[in-house]
């Protein structure tokens, strides 16, 4: 099925009432989650995952993905109006977005952010449509050694890009990999690290871990703040029209942000956040008036907002074509597909075209819905911020508890949630990113399986395993990314150190 044919087929699926409704619920929840500081899209997706069990796989995927990209739209609203990022991908937006609000251009900033997000989201979906299909065709030829190299390389890259200390990122990866070994061994059926517990032999579920690390940890941080209400700038609909000059200033940054974001999404790591910083730096470098950045530059809002939306689309490529998630959000989407009996990967596009194409088409529809929702209804979304934070924190915590329990009606999941909530809170206080742990937990079992299969194929010859052309190329790229930056800084430092002596 070609891209045009596939897309038309996908629209037929996405336009069914149930899928349209799922898409609407997803983008609506995503926008609200994005608007509310603290509750990120990952926690919200994990929270709503149990409610998708009764749905079709395509419908579940449509709804959960809607939360993911919807949050990027909502996050900018809080950043622009309240000077607080609604979610991590909007941190950069507030630098110039809030300054525009202070200058009375809040409406224009919101409109540019929404249109930029729409354009980038739509272009990103075109990228997914083309890249995922192509990559899936290539990936059909991949065997266990190649998959092992991709998972290992992905984890190495993620550790480098997740920000903060590399050693801390490796510690997170190690914990995730270790957690992934708990339960029944998929090859020998031997129980490992279960300590006699029947529930543990099923393994540690991803959802309570994510809910704990992101949801409960965030609630504990909100609880720390106590009773707090935000002061919010009001915006009228008639103020939501940027001037012709503002549109002209935002066009090129939106185009560049879309490209930067999509490419960032393909690489393991916090793409939605990273892409905004790259886009902002790029726009500042290309600008004839870089001194305006931080003072309310239109390009400082347009570029990063486009980038974070395109990044969410780019992140779908490795998930849909290889079945490998490189971020916690795509890990949840993978979990949703697996729960519904689907194995994302190169064969999914040909074997379950209704899921792949229905999902792609729904992203076009979702982006359009978000544009319609975010421009005229921004006042309603902002009013959510008037809900006292301590009430919000309590309700989110209760939802986390019910959500974790409802996964498999297991009390163990509640304890896992609590434990990882406390651990996540500690990590947040120490500013350590937990995403390598989550991705390692998802990729760990796949890595073990493919490594053991690959060693079996190569009769235990590790050299044969790592010197195959594709595996060698993937591992070399990952290694270069890992040791390249410290080596470069060492080379740069040497002449400086040598200068006084010379």
């Amino acid at each position, binding site marked *: 099925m070609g891209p045009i044919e596939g897309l038309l087929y996908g629209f037929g699926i996405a336009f069914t009432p149930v899928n349209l409704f799922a898409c609407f619920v997803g983008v609506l929840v995503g926008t609200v989650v994005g608007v509310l500081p603290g509750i990120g899209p990952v926690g919200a997706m994990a929270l709503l995952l*149990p*409610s998708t069990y*009764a749905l079709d796989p395509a419908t579940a995927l449509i709804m959960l993905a809607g939360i993911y990209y919807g949050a990027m739209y909502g996050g900018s609203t809080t950043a622009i109006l309240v000077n607080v990022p609604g979610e991590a991908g909007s941190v950069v937006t507030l630098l110039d977005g809030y300054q525009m609000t202070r200058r009375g251009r809040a409406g224009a900033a919101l409109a540019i952010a929404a249109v930029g997000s729409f354009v980038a989201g739509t272009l990103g979906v075109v990228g997914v449509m083309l890249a995922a299909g192509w990559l899936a065709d290539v990936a059909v030829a991949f065997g266990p050694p190649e998959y092992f190299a991709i998972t290992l390389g992905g984890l190495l890259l993620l550790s480098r890009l997740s920000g903060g*200390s590399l*050693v801390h990122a*490796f*510690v997170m*990866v*190690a*914990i995730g*990999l*270790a957690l992934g*070994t708990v339960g029944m*061994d998929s*090859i*020998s059926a*031997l129980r*490992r*690290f279960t300590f006699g517990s029947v529930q543990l032999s099923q393994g540690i579920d991803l959802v309570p871990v994510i809910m704990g690390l992101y949801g*409960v940890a965030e*609630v*504990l941080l909100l*609880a*720390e*703040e*106590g*009773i707090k209400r935000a002061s919010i700038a009001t915006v009228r609909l008639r103020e939501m029209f940027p001037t012709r000059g503002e549109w002209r200033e935002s066009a090129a940054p939106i185009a560049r942000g879309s490209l930067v974001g999509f490419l960032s999404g393909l690489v393991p790591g916090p793409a939605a956040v990273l892409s905004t910083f790259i886009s902002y730096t790029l726009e500042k470098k290309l600008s004839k008036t870089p001194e305006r950045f931080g003072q309310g530059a239109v390009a400082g809002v347009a570029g990063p907002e486009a980038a974070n939306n395109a990044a969410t689309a780019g992140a779908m490529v490795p998930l849909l074509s290889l079945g490998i998630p490189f971020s916690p959000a795509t890990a949840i989407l993978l979990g949703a597909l697996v729960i519904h009996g689907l194995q994302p990967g190169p064969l999914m596009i040909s074997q379950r075209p209704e899921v792949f194409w229905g999902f792609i088409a729904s992203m076009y529809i979702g982006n359009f819905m978000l544009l319609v929702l975010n421009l005229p209804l921004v006042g309603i979304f902002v009013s959510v911020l008037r809900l006292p934070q*301590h*009430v919000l*924190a*309590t*309700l989110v*915590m*209760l*939802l986390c*508890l*019910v959500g974790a*329990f*409802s996964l498999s*009606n297991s*009390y163990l999941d*509640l*304890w896992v949630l*609590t434990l990882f*909530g*406390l651990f996540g*809170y*500690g990590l947040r*206080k*120490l*500013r350590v990113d937990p995403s390598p742990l989550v991705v390692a937990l998802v990729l*760990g079992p796949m890595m*073990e399986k493919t*490594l*053991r299969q690959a*060693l*079996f194929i190569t*009769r*235990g010859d*590790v050299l044969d395993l790592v010197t195959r052309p594709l595996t060698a190329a993937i591992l070399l790229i990952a290694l270069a990314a890992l040791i390249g930056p410290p080596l470069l800084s060492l080379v740069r430092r040497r002449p400086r150190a040598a200068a006084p002596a010379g």
Partner: protein
Amino acid sequence: MVERGLLLLILAVAAFYLSEAIRLPLGATARPGAGWYPTAVAVFACIVALIAAVQAFRAPVVRRVRDTGGDAPARRRRVLATVMALVAFCFVLPSIGYPIAALAFTVAMLIGLGSRWPVAMGTGVAAALGSYYLFAVLLDVPLPRGPW
């Protein structure tokens, strides 16, 4: 201090994980057993946790935590109240059932965070009944009902 403590705990857990992993059948490199991969992961975990711990102990003590301002004890109290409510919920849910546990949890957490009693009770009743209706009735999730 928090970082050092957490890393020492992780190192201890990694060492315990290694001791459990090496008890599993290792197999051979050409045919790895159930313990081969966990042992490799455990060795990796011990090495990186050890490096991180050494780094933390060699570095000067710097407060890496967020600025807590002047009301640090009140902040700690609120977090502790939330954690206690969370742990208590996990303990009592099997015996008293979801509606009562959810009500008690919501009220306790709101009071702990500084809410007034009438607000906490009103929110608690609405949250417990609303979530029970949504999950147990509409979504058919078998939430524990307790002895009632």
